[in-house]
């Protein structure tokens, strides 16, 4: 029998505010224990929470970017449960009147054949809530330590509809979501710092069946790759269980990355009863049209729209366009090159391959690139004009990184100008043919690859400066005789 996976994701992102959701404590990461706490976020009796205006606005902005219906009226509710990461014994969240209602995200998901297919993932809701504190267990035998610095930090919980059908789609959805949230500058979405967290709900059902199977919640997912691996594992585990006649238990499972498997939390599964009720410390909000429309006007061009424009305007491949637009800074860099008047195809290739390779090697982000887009465009221009060939250009780029000089200056100083003098190249070709009789024989016997050795010899002879197109032409001519 074939089975269809049904997946929904719950994503928590930290909103980029200076202070917490309900108090003036700093949200900065990495402070010493409990340094960012006050009577409100420590839950002292008599303290009063007051909503951070910026957090509310960022929540609305994120909702608009996810095509959500923004609420006209919203309120905050208490979600009650006992756990030491919550000093108040409740979390302030939103229950039945969230800031953002139904929305959707369009993703381009890569099929096994390499083609991209558009898919719509519904958003159920995206609501505001406060983060909990952090418990430290390691190395402590007689208890746990609690740090409330994170407690009260503003989060937006984005709940997707169960519209995702594969682990790859889940990965693509997360990538798209992260790109959107970064474009609109509501969150850093840095999983390492915990500013983006994801839980997955996974079930399987026989293909064609309408009713959903029993779902399992997977937690402890620390990267998008981990989400993908855990979902794939869980799909296979559930199918195997069903085939063996076992029933799927509704439970929470934790992903163990070293063992590459999910494990049941085996905790006493008490039915949760959060007993939500409106927080009497906080008043409701009515959002005016002007406020929401005003925020809508600040939305930039979003990743998918940008990618589609790149394809249409610049003739980029889908793959290049989606890769460039995953990161707004990268997309801006590429467009910066193109604005200098160089070929978009070359600009895309040089940005995505050569530039990123050097940046990754030096562990630099695109915005910290010592070679700005105008300078890369300068290098590309030299290739377009035939002044240098691609191979030399790579060396020049490396030199640009270290010296900060422009490509023009480096090429002039080092005498790297491409040799297009046919007489000179002809001599080098003749010499190479004479020196490589074996390769020549192989080529004549039909082995195209043998040509590489001869071209290599020509390049060596000319210090890598020979125009490869002319070398090829002369070589083909000579060998045909």
């Amino acid at each position, binding site marked *: 029998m074939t089975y269809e996976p049904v997946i929904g994701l719950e994503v928590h992102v930290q909103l980029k505010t200076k202070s917490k959701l309900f108090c003036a404590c700093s949200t900065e990461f990495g402070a010493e224990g409990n340094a960012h706490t006050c009577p409100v976020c420590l839950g002292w009796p008599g303290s009063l929470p007051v909503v951070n205006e910026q957090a509310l606005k960022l929540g609305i902005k994120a909702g608009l970017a996810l095509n959500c219906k923004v609420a006209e009226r919203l309120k905050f509710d208490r979600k009650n449960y006992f756990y030491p990461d919550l000093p108040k014994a409740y979390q302030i969240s939103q229950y039945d009147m969230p800031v953002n209602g139904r929305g959707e995200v369009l993703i381009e998901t890569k099929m096994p054949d390499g083609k991209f297919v558009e898919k719509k993932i519904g958003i159920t809701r995206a609501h505001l809530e406060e983060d909990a504190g952090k418990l430290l267990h390691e190395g402590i035998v007689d208890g*746990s330590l609690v740090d409330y610095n994170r407690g009260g930090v503003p989060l937006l919980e984005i709940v997707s509809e169960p519209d995702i059908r594969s682990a790859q789609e889940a990965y693509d959805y997360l990538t798209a979501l992260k790109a959107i949230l970064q474009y609109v500058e509501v969150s850093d979405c840095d999983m390492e710092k915990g500013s983006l967290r994801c839980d997955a709900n996974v079930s399987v059902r026989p293909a064609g069946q309408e009713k959903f199977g029993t779902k399992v919640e997977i937690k402890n997912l620390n990267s998008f790759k981990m989400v993908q691996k855990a979902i794939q594992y869980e799909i296979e585990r559930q199918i195997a269980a069903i085939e063996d006649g076992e029933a799927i238990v509704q439970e929470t499972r934790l992903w163990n990355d070293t063992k590459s498997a999910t494990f049941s939390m085996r905790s006493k599964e008490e039915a949760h009863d959060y007993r939500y009720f409106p927080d009497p410390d906080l008043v409701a909000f009515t959002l005016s049209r002007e406020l929401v429309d005003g925020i809508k006007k600040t939305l930039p061009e979003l990743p998918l729209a940008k990618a589609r424009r790149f394809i249409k305007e610049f003739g980029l491949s889908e793959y290049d366009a989606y890769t460039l637009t995953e990161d707004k800074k990268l997309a801006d860099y590429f467009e910066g090159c193109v604005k200098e008047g160089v070929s978009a195809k070359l600009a895309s290739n040089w940005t995505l391959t050569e530039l990123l390779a050097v940046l990754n090697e030096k562990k630099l982000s695109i915005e910290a690139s010592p070679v700005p887009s105008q300078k890369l465009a300068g290098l590309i221009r030299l290739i377009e004009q035939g002044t240098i060939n691609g191979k030399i250009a790579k060396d020049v780029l490396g030199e640009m990184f270290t010296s900060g000089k422009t490509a023009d200056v480096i090429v002039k100083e080092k005498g790297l100008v491409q040799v297009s003098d046919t007489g000179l190249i002809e001599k080098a070709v003749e010499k190479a043919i004479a020196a490589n009789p074996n390769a020549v024989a192989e080529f004549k016997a039909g082995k195209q690859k043998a040509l590489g050795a001869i071209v290599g010899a020509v390049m060596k002879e000319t210090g890598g400066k020979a125009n490869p197109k002319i070398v090829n032409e002369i070589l083909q001519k000579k060998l045909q005789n």
Partner: protein
Amino acid sequence: MEFNIDRVAELARLSLKPEEKIKLEKELGAILAYVQKLSALDTKDIEPTSHVLDLENVYRADEVKASEAAEKALEHAPKADGRFFKVPKIVQKD
């Protein structure tokens, strides 16, 4: 109004003696019955309220202000370890 005293106690993390259960069940029942009187009213045309004050849209600017609460709180905490509050060992979630 129906309720289960064991469930209520469990949710509130209270362990009750049998005689306490009987007493509290009676008292809680009486309180709920009193509040139940509200359901006799016709609330069809009444806006749901979640707050007694006629206020809305109360917020503050996103500004950071340091507090010295942590020092005091740690000082008065039943247990603390350096800059951290110390709580009884939580059942490990794995």
